[in-house]
């Protein structure tokens, strides 16, 4: 059986040519060609598609050599590979460039980083600080990426983005988060007070700085304003939500604190006005604390104690609760409250 395409003489019984693969059994093949409709839709659509492809190619044609030219130029301009020295210096923002001859870029990166850190300190609050800190990390990451510019410039955009992201995350997790935590523990920590009753001393939304461990020695005296933890306690008609509260210490270990309808007496002496709780004298129930070692008396005057006066035994419950809450152990005191930083109009020391 001869192949009609290549004239090769095949063995009888074969359905395809052994040389060219053409079909040898054509009896069942349809010979009626497909026909177009009146509008020649498929042809026109294919033409439009082809024309669009040509248009895209004509746009891309001049861009492609231009890109190649730029890449070649960059190859000549940045011939040096990554140096270990630059990489080591780049752990300090901008120093990788400053120490390796690219002073202008280094200065810019260092300036941006310093500005961001400064702004983070000026706008000190949990939200804004992290925002500016994030920008500072970006500037730092850019400095490190610039060290790898020689390698990265020839990579695909996705690879470059991924590499940048990895650098950013590693910097954030390995350098900045631990450093920030260390600074917060040792120097100062901003806290925003959202769940308090507004008083002349502190208002809802204020941001205060708590002193770090470097500046206090866990020895508190009467009249100090401190941040302390309160437990989640409650009962019939009275609820106290757990959290951080700020108030003044009115009694120190060994003191006897008595509250009655007329005054707050510490060791039998009425408490002076500058040592009263920040929210004023709210509680007038008959209560007595005999403070043991490591026990301080702090009346939660800024807390919204939800007392339901109609509940049976509410006043008794409130008194019992106040007795519990008012006695604070040393390990529950976080730090002395230092200054009020926001709003700026009320910036000042908390006394």
């Amino acid at each position: 059986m001869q192949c009609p395409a290549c004239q090769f003489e095949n063995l009888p019984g074969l359905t395809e040519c052994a040389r060219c693969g053409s079909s040898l059994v054509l009896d069942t093949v349809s010979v009626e060609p497909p026909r177009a409709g009146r509008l020649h839709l498929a042809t026109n659509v294919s033409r439009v598609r082809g024309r669009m492809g040509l248009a895209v190619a004509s746009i891309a044609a001049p861009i492609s050599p231009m890109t190649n030219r730029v890449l070649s130029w960059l190859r000549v301009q940045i011939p040096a590979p990554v140096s270990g020295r630059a990489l080591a210096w780049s752990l300090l923002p901008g120093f990788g460039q400053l120490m390796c001859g690219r002073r202008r870029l280094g200065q810019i990166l260092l300036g941006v980083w310093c500005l961001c850190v400064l702004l983070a300190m000026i706008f000190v609050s949990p939200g804004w600080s992290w925002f500016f800190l994030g920008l500072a990390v970006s500037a730092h990451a850019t400095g490190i990426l610039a060290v790898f510019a020689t390698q990265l410039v020839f990579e695909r955009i996705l690879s470059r983005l991924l590499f940048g992201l990895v650098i950013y995350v590693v910097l954030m997790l390995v350098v900045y988060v631990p450093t920030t935590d260390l600074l917060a523990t040792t120097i100062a920590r901003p806290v925003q007070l959202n769940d308090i009753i507004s008083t002349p001393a502190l208002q809802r939304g204020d941001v205060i700085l708590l002193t770090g461990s470097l500046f206090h020695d866990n020895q508190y005296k009467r009249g100090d304003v401190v941040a302390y933890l309160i437990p989640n306690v409650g009962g019939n008609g009275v609820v106290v939500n757990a959290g951080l509260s700020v108030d003044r210490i009115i009694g120190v270990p060994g003191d006897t604190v008595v509250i009655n309808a007329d005054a707050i007496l510490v060791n039998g002496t009425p408490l002076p006005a500058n040592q009263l709780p920040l929210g004023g004298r709210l509680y007038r129930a008959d209560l007595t604390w005999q403070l043991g070692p490591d026990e301080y008396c702090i009346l939660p005057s800024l807390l919204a104690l939800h007392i339901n006066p109609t509940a049976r035994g509410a006043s008794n419950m409130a008194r019992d609760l106040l007795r519990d809450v008012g006695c604070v152990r040393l390990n529950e005191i976080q730090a002395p409250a230092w200054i009020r930083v926001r709003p700026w109009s009320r910036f000042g020391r908390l006394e």
Partner: protein
Amino acid sequence: MTGRFSNLEFEHGREQTQDALGQQQDELVTDFLARATAAYHLGEFEEALRFYTRALKEDRQLIPAWIGQVQMLIELDECHEARVWAQRAEELFRGHGDLLAVQAQAIARLNDPKSALALSDAAMQAAGDMPLRWTARGEVMLARGVRYAAECFDNALNHPAATWFEGVVIARVCQYYSRATLALRYAQIALREMSTAPFAWLVAGECEAALGSLASARTNFDHALELRPNWPLAIAARQQAEHSGIWRRLFRRLRLRR
């Protein structure tokens, strides 16, 4: 008893019958092919397509008929279908140069000159050498907008297997890509070889009309009508040339300047 002998083979008689049938089939195929070619030479593409199909029904291995079908589909501006049909034919006859060439033509007309060039390359590398491949090559060059199209067309014309109709085919290709000057050149070459072909006169007239030489175009259409009276295509073309206003002529000239 007769049933027992009904399956006996009488070789001599069967061979004679088969020969006669084969001869009859060959004659039919030759006749259909000739009629298809004649219709093509007259510009009757639908009719030519029908005859190519009938020839294929007789002999499915007739590659010129497959090629003819694809060419007719292209001439009828059914390029998408032409591409599909050419691919199908190429699956049956793998690597056949002429089938690859017509496939390249169909794809070039679908604005995909890159693929068309690849197919044309394959066609040129395939065994054998036919003028159709050079024509397709020239068309691909025109579609890509590069030079050397005329050289390819000249190669097709100078090929030993080329007939007078090759010039008309090339002129039609050039017409499709709005290269009227080049088209006229090849139409005139065809006319020099076969001045009694009405379709060649018609194509030459269309080229003249496209170039704005309406008087020459009318003369050409008249020649076509002399050779084939009452030919609707020529009558329509002549009427169009007569009613062609100055703006349309100017527009054509401007369009041809690119």
